[in-house]
């Protein structure tokens, strides 16, 4: 039994969530998927950030394995690592039920109260 209650992969997953939690990095992933790959220069031309900023973001994505690179001429050419992206997506998909679960509880509680009130109409009328 782990006293921490969290798995050994937590650190990696935290980094993965953090990496994908940034809007610029998500746009980079979008572009890489659409175009099948790109360099800091080619991606920077399509985003309102500097080439240096793009390179830094790509480094973060590379660190968590969401992208990998091969050297192409003077620059690294990046592409999306689909296995790691699938891993991220499955994590995100598993959390999609959070509000659904809360709302189902709200529904159940409200409907229980409603039924209880309908079964005791005389009590409410006595408030007059």
């Amino acid at each position, binding site marked *: 039994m782990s006293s921490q209650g969290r798995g050994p992969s937590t650190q990696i997953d935290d980094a993965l969530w953090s990496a994908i939690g940034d809007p610029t990095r998500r746009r980079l992933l979008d572009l890489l998927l659409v175009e099948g790959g790109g360099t800091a220069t080619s991606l920077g031309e399509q985003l309102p950030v500097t080439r240096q900023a793009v390179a830094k973001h790509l480094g973060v994505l590379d660190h968590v394995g969401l992208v990998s690179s091969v050297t192409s001429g003077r620059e690294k050419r990046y592409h999306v690592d689909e296995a790691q992206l699938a891993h*991220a*997506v499955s994590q*995100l998909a*598993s959390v999609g039920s*959070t*509000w659904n*679960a809360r709302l189902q509880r709200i*529904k159940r509680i409200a409907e229980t*109260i*409603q039924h209880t009130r309908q079964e005791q109409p005389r009590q409410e009328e006595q408030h007059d």
Partner: protein
Amino acid sequence: MHSKELGTIQRELLIEAAPEVVFDVVSKPEHLKEWWPDDARYEPTPGSAGEIIFINPEGEGDSASFTVVEAIPPRVFSFRWTHPAGETAAEGNSLLVTFELMPREGGTSLRMTETGFREMGWEAAVLEEQYREHMKGWDYFLPRLAPYIATLEKRL
């Protein structure tokens, strides 16, 4: 609303109960803690600042700030949460949750909107994951990733 904000999630469902009943359930602390945190301390009136408490696996309580924004029974209840303790809740430092209630034949249509994930999604996800293993996180970027999923499914 904040339609331009990335990371807005919205849900709508029909509840077979009067709007007044549903309003009580989404707004009153004694009901809130039945469907979400382990404890809730606030007054359900606009501007009221309080906290919601999550019990972690070690049995200790951890609190998140909770401030009521609007309370218009039985139509609208909204609040901000996750802002740093001591700070006034505002756009940029917190998540905004809005419940809108509409009377329907046989009950109430309840719409829930949550915005602010651009800034807060990660923090919220960490909080949730730490204290609720079965409810770990939020679907902040799920809508954005849906096209990716489709791409992957085609190839699998």
